[in-house]
């Protein structure tokens, strides 16, 4: 059995579309400093190992961890790097968790860092390269190039999300207004979060619906921005955590599950997942993580959820697929205010990925924010006491899902 792992602190850099005032290492050090500021007793000497990750193709600097070691404080320390596309941050968090729970001699405190400075490079090139191998097969099988290019520019991440959106809208019989409502809630929440990117305190549903289509049914006003930013999270053991901060957050369950890709099949074959909005990976990951954490009734036991939702339809999908709401009832919950800041089950009170998307860092920001909500240190703190929260990440070819379940009490049922 592994050791119980606790989160003692989390930190962010300020996010903006162009952080041209800092270089990439400085951006990382901002987040690291903000993280260590919350735990005054911890210095760089106390951190035993480092995990970091980003998507190198998005910003044009390959293997950045090799030349920014000093900026993370990782000199002469074990350093691990993971990159899994959109879920990079989620995987970084899970790798940090594994490092501590493994119980290696001398490794107790681990700093997990994820970052992305998208303004440095061309994100479209990076995104295209993700599926280029699969798409080029279709071309050699004789599918005309104009169709493929339309898929790409219809395109990339938003292309696949719009397929999900049409399916989800058909399934739960909602209109674009319901999608816009999710956006409005997120952008208004973001206005109260100091590190968020798109802060729109006075946004209305009409304003969102007034913007042109980018790819039906998603409009310009609904999609996530491309941000520069970094995030850091400090993991340690249960014993050390009590000395470091007042309210340690215990990690009780993690999962990282991959499923059949949608839209593009393996080796040019047809995609086996007929309904892209049916994310079996999310269901499986929630089964695993909730099972580890001993959660039988997610809707009642979870107080706060941070889901990875660059597009509004995904936020509705994830809360259903993760078991927080019954299927097709999520839009109703957003309408009645269950998911609002003072609601029964607040979702994405930091503004979510919909308001801030530094791709590599995004999935780490979810568990980080969820942990801060338990500690009571989040900048847009929910009024009720949060005991259990989840941080979710999504990426890959529509199929990889990471999930981390955190609580203010350690899980002792099976440990």
């Amino acid at each position, binding site marked *: 059995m592994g050791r119980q792992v606790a989160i003692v602190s989390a930190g962010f850099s*300020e996010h903006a579309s162009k952080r*041209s*005032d*800092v*270089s990439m290492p*400085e951006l990382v050090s*901002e987040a690291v*400093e*903000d993280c260590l*500021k919350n735990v005054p007793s911890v210095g760089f000497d106390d951190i035993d190992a480092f995990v970091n990750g980003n998507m190198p*193709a998005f910003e*044009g600097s390959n293997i950045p961890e090799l030349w920014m070691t000093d900026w993370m404080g990782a000199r002469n320390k074990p350093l691990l790097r993971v990159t899994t596309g959109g879920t990079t941050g989620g995987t970084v968090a899970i790798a940090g968790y594994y490092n501590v729970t493994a119980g290696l001699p001398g490794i107790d405190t681990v700093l997990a860092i994820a970052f992305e400075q998208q303004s440095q*490079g061309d994100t479209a*090139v990076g995104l295209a*390269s993700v599926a*280029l*191998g699969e798409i*080029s*097969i*279709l071309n*050699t*099988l*004789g*599918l005309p190039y104009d*169709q*493929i290019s*339309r*898929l790409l*520019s*219809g*395109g990339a991440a938003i*292309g696949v999300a*719009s*397929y*999900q*959106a*049409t*399916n989800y809208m*058909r399934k739960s*019989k909602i209109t674009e207004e319901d999608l816009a409502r999710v956006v409005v809630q997120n952008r208004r929440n973001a206005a109260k979060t100091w590190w968020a990117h798109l802060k729109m305190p006075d946004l209305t549903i009409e304003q969102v619906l007034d913007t*042109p*289509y*980018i*790819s*039906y*049914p998603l409009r310009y006003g609904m999609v996530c921005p491309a941000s520069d930013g970094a995030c850091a999270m400090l993991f340690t053991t249960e014993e050390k955590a009590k000395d470091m901060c007042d309210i340690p957050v215990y990690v009780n369950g993690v999962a990282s599950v991959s499923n*059949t890709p949608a*839209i*593009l*099949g*393996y*080796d*040019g*074959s*047809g*995609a*086996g997942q*007929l*309904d*892209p909005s049916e994310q079996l990976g999310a269901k499986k990951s929630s089964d695993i993580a909730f099972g580890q954490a001993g959660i039988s009734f997610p809707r009642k036991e979870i107080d706060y959820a941070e889901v990875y939702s660059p597009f509004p339809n995904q936020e509705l999908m994830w809360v259903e697929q993760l078991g927080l709401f019954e299927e097709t009832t999520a839009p109703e919950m957003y309408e009645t205010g269950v998911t609002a800041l003072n609601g029964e089950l607040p979702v994405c009170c930091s503004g979510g990925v919909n308001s801030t998307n530094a791709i590599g860092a995004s999935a780490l920001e979810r568990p980080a924010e969820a942990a801060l909500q338990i500690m009571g240190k989040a900048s847009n703190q929910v009024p009720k006491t949060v005991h259990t929260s989840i941080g979710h990440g999504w990426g890959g070819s529509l199929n990889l899902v990471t999930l981390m379940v955190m609580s203010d009490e350690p899980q002792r049922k099976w440990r």
Partner: protein
Amino acid sequence: MSKRTERKDMDYIKKEYIKTRTMPASWYLSSYKYKFNITHMQPFLDKLKERKLVGLQCSSCNQVFFPPRLVCGQCMVKPDRWVDIRETGQVATFTVSYLKDPETGEVLERPMVLVRPDDADTVLLSQLSPKIDFKDTYIGMPLKIHWKDEITEGLGNIEYYDPIDDDSEDLELRKD
């Protein structure tokens, strides 16, 4: 070309580093040679030239893959049964792309669809007949293949999908 930018005033950062300089650069990512197996594809591509559709069925879970797949990911079994597939299908999901015409510059609204052939268990990216208005597209719309006039390579033989009469009872419900 380099551009100087001033750092915003933020109290939590070291004040010493206040200036950055931007250097333009390019990352030429070479050209790639992706490898993939087409042994299992050959009968499928040959049949397409005869204007016939075939799929590969997994003998363990009976899933039909169209286009064929080398290994069934669910059962880890090599699908080995060729089955005929009808020309009709349904829209599994769709989106509308707004792309500019490279010549005229006007925005073309074209529905991009994933079609599920009636006998297959997979979906394939395709396009609809240009006569269809994108507003009339809906999930579950019945379709039939429109073959290209001259015989070409592989999937290129399927020019587009034509809509056929929808005789389902809950048609109005579907179009919502």
